[in-house]
């Protein structure tokens, strides 16, 4: 799981152009939106595309993102359970 979390952080940084950030700067349990990483609604859509592209996970209901994108740890757990590639 630690390996997946680290890789996921790298992919988030790349997908969202978080230029000045390193994986080490992202807390596993910190909120991705609002106070945490401060991501916005376009970033959420980009994360949905990223999950489909890299892990073959297609979210049927975008509202699911609210739960899944709570933190990198929650996201990694969801990916581990649902990935098809």
């Amino acid at each position, binding site marked *: 799981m630690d390996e997946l979390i680290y890789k996921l952080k790298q992919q988030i940084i790349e*997908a*969202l*152009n*978080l*230029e*000045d950030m390193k994986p080490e700067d992202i807390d596993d349990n910190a909120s991705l939106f609002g106070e945490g990483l401060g991501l916005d609604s*376009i*970033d959420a*859509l*980009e994360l949905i*595309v990223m999950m*489909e*592209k890299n892990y073959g996970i297609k979210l049927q209901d975008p509202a699911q993102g609210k739960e899944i994108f709570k933190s990198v740890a929650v996201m990694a757990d969801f990916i581990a359970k649902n990935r098809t590639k």
Partner: protein
Amino acid sequence: MIKHQVYISPNEVKVNGKSLTINGCGSTILTELYRSQVGDYPKFFKMDTLSKVGFIASELLLNAEGYRGFEPREDRAVIFFNRNASLQADTHYQSTIQNPENYFPSPAAFVYTLPNIVTGEIAIRNKYFGETSFMVIDDFDEKIIMKNLENAFQDPITKSIIGGWVDCSDEEHFEARIFLMEKDN
């Protein structure tokens, strides 16, 4: 009356006619200028090249003006012109949907597929609630630009304009010639 002006090309940056020292060339100067002159707006890294050019040019212009209050105001408009609309962002977005085997439309690329997004970026950054518009014309034409900007002063609210030319055909070909203009009394 024009109060301040900024010129940016891939190998030259001038503020009020005075050249700034830059080390790189091409699109790297935009990041270089962001780091040396701005530094506190990471959303810059998400922008397309046109928005980066317009954003950096506006930051240099407003730094030259001096006071950066970031208080909400309605009396300042942002009105730009160019030739290539949002061509670079359009091409980038197209690349994300070109291959049916690798079809992943990027929302972050799509949001920049309109040139007027750059005026919005500047308005959001500075809390401007006045007019914003972006007009696409054949070529840089000072007469057309000035006429449109003077017309913008006809409303009773606008007292100053960040206006001029912001064009980009790809990451290595761009130009900003913008200025801060105030209404004559």
